[in-house]
């Protein structure tokens, strides 16, 4: 068991090094530079551009830039090109803003996908099954922002609550209850929108996984013994069907962070996704690279955690 965990961590560390190479070289091999953001500015003299390039180490070879980046990241002195603020606190603040969104979206995905998928598989071919499958397809086929716009129109028009931003401006003197409700409305709509894709995808996986398990011999044996239907489905089949999903936990994270770029832009949510978007517009390389790296680290941590969990839950793994 410990061997397995240690080996797993070792593999992840190697992956982390590859990831940091990719995150860095990817940005620097592409054309387009921070010094070119404002090429028409008449006040930008060639000397100024040279000065900027020197300050950002842009004249050094790529591997030296990589070394500088890792060094500054390690000492926490990495500065944004845009406003010379330290990158890590900047990302941390935005991460704290995004966190409730990520958490609620994740909770929604995992609490909705399973019952929907399992119920569909157990009652295969029923009206419920067919309509949820079709609905799932419909939901992954809509452009995310199209659906969000409709949702905004509907919520604002029907309930008359504002949903743009993290809270309503100028509510400082309102009652606590109003403030909380305001926050909740602002949080729920974007989280639901971010979760919808995940729910649709995951519930289909759950359904097909459950179908596969239900056609196994041991389920037939359990039925042949004359056990209650519920005992067979929930006692014998469910556990085995759910096992693979332990490993999916980590892999859903990049989707969530990537999707945040669009949803935070729509809902004017000052989170990680918008920070990334602003950084891209400003050619703010340190922020882009560090964001990519942090997203990858989160994913690696997530997959590591799910691999270990999987080994704990599934005794067959330990044999290898």
């Amino acid at each position, binding site marked *: 068991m410990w061997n397995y965990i240690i080996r797993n961590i070792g593999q992840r560390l*190697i*992956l982390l090094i*590859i*990831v940091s190479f*990719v*995150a860095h070289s*990817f*940005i620097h091999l*592409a*054309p*387009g530079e921070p010094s070119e953001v404002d090429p028409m500015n008449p006040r930008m003299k060639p000397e100024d551009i040279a000065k900027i390039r020197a300050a950002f180490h842009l004249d050094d070879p790529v591997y030296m830039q990589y070394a500088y980046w890792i060094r500054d990241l390690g000492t926490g002195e990495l500065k944004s090109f845009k406003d010379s603020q330290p990158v890590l606190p900047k990302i941390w603040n935005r991460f704290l803003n995004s966190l409730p969104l990520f958490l609620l979206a994740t909770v929604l995905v995992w609490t909705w996908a399973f019952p929907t998928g399992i119920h569909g598989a157990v009652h*295969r*071919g029923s009206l419920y099954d067919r309509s949820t499958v*079709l609905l799932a*397809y*419909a939901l*992954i*086929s*809509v*452009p*995310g*922002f*199209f659906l969000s*716009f409709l949702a905004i*129109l509907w919520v604002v028009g029907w309930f008359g609550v504002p949903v743009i931003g993290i809270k309503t401006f100028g509510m400082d003197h309102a009652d606590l209850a109003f403030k909380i409700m305001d926050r909740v409305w602002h949080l729920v709509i974007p989280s639901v929108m971010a979760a919808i894709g995940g729910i649709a995808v995951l519930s289909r996986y759950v359904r*097909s996984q459950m*179908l*596969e398990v239900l*056609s196994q011999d041991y389920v037939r044996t359990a039925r042949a013994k004359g056990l209650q239907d519920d005992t067979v489905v929930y006692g014998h089949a469910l556990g085995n069907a759910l096992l693979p999903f332990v490993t999916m936990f980590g*892999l859903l994270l*990049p*989707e*969530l*962070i*990537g*999707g945040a*770029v*669009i949803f935070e*832009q729509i809902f004017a949510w000052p989170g990680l*996704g918008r920070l*990334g*978007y602003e950084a*891209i*517009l400003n*050619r703010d390389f340190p922020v*882009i690279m560090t*964001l*990519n790296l942090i*997203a*990858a680290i989160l*994913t*690696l941590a997530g997959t590591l955690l799910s691999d270990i969990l999987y080994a704990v839950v599934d005794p067959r793994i330990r044999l290898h």
Partner: protein
Amino acid sequence: MNESPETLAHQRSRLLLDPEELPPSETPWQEFLRIYLKDYQALLGFWVLMLLLVTAFAGKVFTEWWVVFDPEVVRLTDTFLPPFSVPSPDSIEVDRPLGGVYLMGTDELGRDVFARMFQGSFVSLSIGFVAVGISLGIGIVLGGLAGFYGHVKLGFVTVDTLIMRFTDAMMCFPRFFLILTAVALLPPSIYTIMMIIGFFGWMGTARFVRAEFFSIREQDYVVAAKALGIPEGRIIFRHMVPNALAPVFVSATIGVASAILTESGLSFLGFGVPPPYATWGNILSDGKGFIFDAPWLFFIPGLAIFIVVLAFNLVGEGLREALNPKLRRR
């Protein structure tokens, strides 16, 4: 042993089954068709896609080669006309649309939305197909290499480790964010968008192909082909790749759908296909500013994208059901 030779012969003839009496054996293709044709959702999706293909080619022909519907004519007299409205009397004679009616209305510059959608159908579809073609190419080559030459050692690592660790590393990044960064940094053009969406979508295919190759490599027909001394390249491309392609084909169908969605997402953030080309994504994202004044600019492209992507997804799912025996109803 008192049975007569007659009865023995009779019994023997009963044991040898008459081929006429057996149920006709199905070729895999027939079996696939039988299952697919029963799935009415997938069939519907298939016909929608056929219609779309025809529309897309007609769109290419009629908006670019032989201009019947000109998507680029600006008519400042006819801005924001709703669908099925006729050009205003003071519009210029030659700029009026075919048939004298704007089927899908006009946008803020008086351009004919129908012509733009018509042109966009080809552009959007080709973005989907080219992007998926690129990601399939990379995925099949890398996955095939890892699956077939995986055990070969390069120095201290095997080919398989090298390729799969790189694949794992690429899967850790938020895909949409990477695509957005690349699109923003590279010079804006429709070709870079196609290529970038393709370059960041091959990871799933590579893993599929590798897994398939691992299982196929041990099959008797591959061993037999090796024993016959057939060159490796031929074994891979003539014998193994066609057998590994079924799941890849399914993921390609769904990949086209997600490429179209990705393009519309990029358009929304302002990094879509640059102006001379209309795509459904950029018509939709241009239309979002006029959702109250001119709802058709928002809903027509939105619904078009929805229907097409849904059709791709349903066809993909139908293919998966028909190709994968495990999911079939028992």
